[in-house]
């Protein structure tokens, strides 16, 4: 096959390209330029593009850079900023996968005559009920099926995850064995357009006005103040302007309209159900009443829940055991009851 492999400059995509070559595919490397501003961690710094190019040279494959900054701003950065203004906490990496990697890049690859797009994600495509689904990566600790859960049916047929069956240790060992310069490169952790020095606070502060918020307890008693209600997330424990000592207190509600942050104990965070909007399914929704495994953060465990309502793309799930509340904007991903295959997912409301 003729495969376009997305090279981020990291070890996983480097090994992905090498594996594809070893399997006899015709491989071209592509690095997406997504963010034009300052960056120190992400996949589009010039240093990372240098790494991607050097790996491609070492493997003897072509390497090109596509400039997708316009779509990245439109679909990832601008909504990220707007969401914080409305008290919503989105996952920009998921939106990037949804709109850039598995939409714009996949389209481009198709137009240019490629049979498949490959990435270095720790996920697999497996068959469940006779049809292709995103499947958890072999390395449970590095599994990224959550962040690629939105793969539409069309892309499930033409996406490859060449390192999904490997553990991270295997990936690094293979990179070392091949002498790839990225073998020991640390994993990227953070949002690529936010610098580690400035953080989310500086990034958002340069783009939206912050409003001070009042911190109250469950009875409405005023306990303190936070400088920016836009930076407060449900479940947060630190940085809410309360003195140390005493019982642990969590943010249990954020009213952005009224700029009020309510704190309580851990128990106050528990919810018996969760709803999500904008839900998409790999091959149609399961039946109402079905039990699914539900994951609500990139590295959290999935918990069983029953699908109790589907209205268009809005779903409601009842947890088997009460679970911590999930901040609006986070992805809610449903796996089969064996907790291996992605059925679909939406955005917590």
């Amino acid at each position, binding site marked *: 096959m003729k495969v376009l492999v997305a090279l981020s400059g990291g070890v996983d995509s480097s090994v992905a390209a090498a594996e594809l070559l070893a399997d006899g595919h015709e491989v071209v490397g592509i*690095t997406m330029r997504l963010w034009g501003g300052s960056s120190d961690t992400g996949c589009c710094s010039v240093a990372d*593009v240098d790494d991607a190019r050097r790996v491609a040279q070492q493997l003897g494959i072509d390497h090109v850079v596509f*400039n997708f900054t316009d779509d990245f701003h439109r679909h990832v950065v601008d909504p990220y900023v707007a969401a914080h203004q409305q008290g919503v906490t989105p996952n920009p990496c998921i939106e990037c996968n949804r709109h850039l990697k598995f939409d714009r890049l996949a389209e*481009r690859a198709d*137009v240019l005559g490629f049979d498949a797009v490959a990435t270095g994600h720790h996920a697999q495509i497996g068959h469940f009920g006779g049809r292709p689904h995103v499947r958890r990566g072999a390395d449970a600790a590095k599994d990224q099926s959550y962040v690629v859960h939105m793969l539409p049916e069309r892309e499930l047929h033409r996406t490859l995850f060449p390192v999904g069956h490997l553990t991270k240790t295997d990936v690094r060992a293979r990179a070392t064995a091949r002498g790839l310069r990225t073998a020991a490169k640390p994993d990227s952790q953070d949002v690529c357009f936010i610098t580690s020095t400035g953080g989310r606070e500086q990034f958002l502060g340069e783009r939206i006005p912050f409003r001070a918020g009042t911190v109250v307890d469950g009875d409405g008693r005023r306990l303190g103040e936070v400088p920016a209600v836009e930076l407060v997330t449900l479940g947060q424990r630190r940085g809410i302007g309360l003195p140390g000592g005493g019982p642990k207190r969590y943010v249990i509600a954020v009213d952005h309209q009224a700029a009020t942050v309510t704190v309580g104990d851990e128990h106050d965070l528990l919810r018996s159900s969760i709803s999500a909007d904008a839900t998409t399914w790999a091959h149609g929704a399961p039946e109402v009443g079905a039990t699914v495994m539900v994951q609500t953060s990139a590295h959290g465990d999935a918990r069983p829940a029953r699908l109790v309502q589907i209205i268009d793309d809005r779903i409601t799930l009842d947890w088997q055991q009460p679970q911590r509340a999930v901040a609006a904007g986070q992805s809610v991903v449903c796996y089969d009851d064996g907790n291996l295959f992605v059925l679909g997912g939406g955005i917590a409301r």
Partner: protein
Amino acid sequence: VDATAYTYLDHAATTPMRPAAVQAMLPYLSERFANPSGSHRFSREVRKAVDDARETVAQVIGCQPGEVIFTGGGTEADNTALLGADNGALVCPATEHHAVLDVVRRAGGSVVAVDETGHVDLVALAARLDDAASPVSAVSVMAVNNEVGTITDMAAVAAVVARHGRGAMLHTDAVQAACWVDLRDVWAHVDMLSLSAHKFGGPKGVGVLAVRAGSPLRPLIIGGGQERERRSGTHNVPGIVAMASALQETDAERVCETERIGALRDFLVDTIRESLPEVIETVPRARKVAGSAHLCVPGVENESLLFLLDEAGVCASAASACASGAMEPSHVLAAMGVPIDVARGALRLTLGSTTTADDVHVGAHAVIAAVQRLQMRTVPA
């Protein structure tokens, strides 16, 4: 890398070295290695080569040898000209190369509008010069635009600067002009002129800044005092010798080559437009240099088009690339008022001294095939 495997239509990015220029530089890479600033006989021999080169370059520009400063390329020449003259505000049109535009911006200067062909708007330039609150020390207007090929009417620009500039100097980035325009006709109107050797068959990393005698200029690079203290650093003797050889040959062949290459360019564009009538010629041919074809293909993304041309072995370009190698949206087309969806389909094909009829034939049909394939596979929005 085997250059014969490629159909090379990217001569504005760089053009192959002329064989005579390669021959001219070889002795200075080996046995004639002395430092021309030394005090011994060996140095004096090499110094003569630098002095001869300076005279040759001066003859082609039409200036005095003492007005020629050898630099480390076109960007350095532009930077030296502008940063050496910024005792007042700097002004340039919006279509300049980044080597000028970014210097003017960083120095807090003014960027003036252009018309739809990319030519500086003389009324806007005059208005900026008339602003007495911010006196201008230097105006920089490129002789030929690197992206779209538009030729500047330098006499007209010079007249505006003379009338409204209150002593402002006029600099021109003539990097894209040397192959197509008589530099003497440009020099007649300006105070400073930049050249880059690798755009006319010389090596990379060497250029010229011509500065009219008596013009004030602070050096950008300070050190051993070479080039009459206007550009320190040991002379790049092989580069300077080869550059002079290439410039002399380019000048001697210019009239014939412009005619030959202009006909090839016309064939290239006409062939493409015969099959793809929707293709837009960005600037009328009468306004631009003979070696430049700049087209906009509506509905096609130039990254895709360049990818397919690359696969077909055709070297072309669109706009300038950023540090990562990604294509940037063209600031030139934006300044000309080309709508963004049209600019997205921009394609620059540039010809040079080694371009053959076969190249343009292959190039034209590769463009047609690539565009047709993209049109077929792109779902209309």
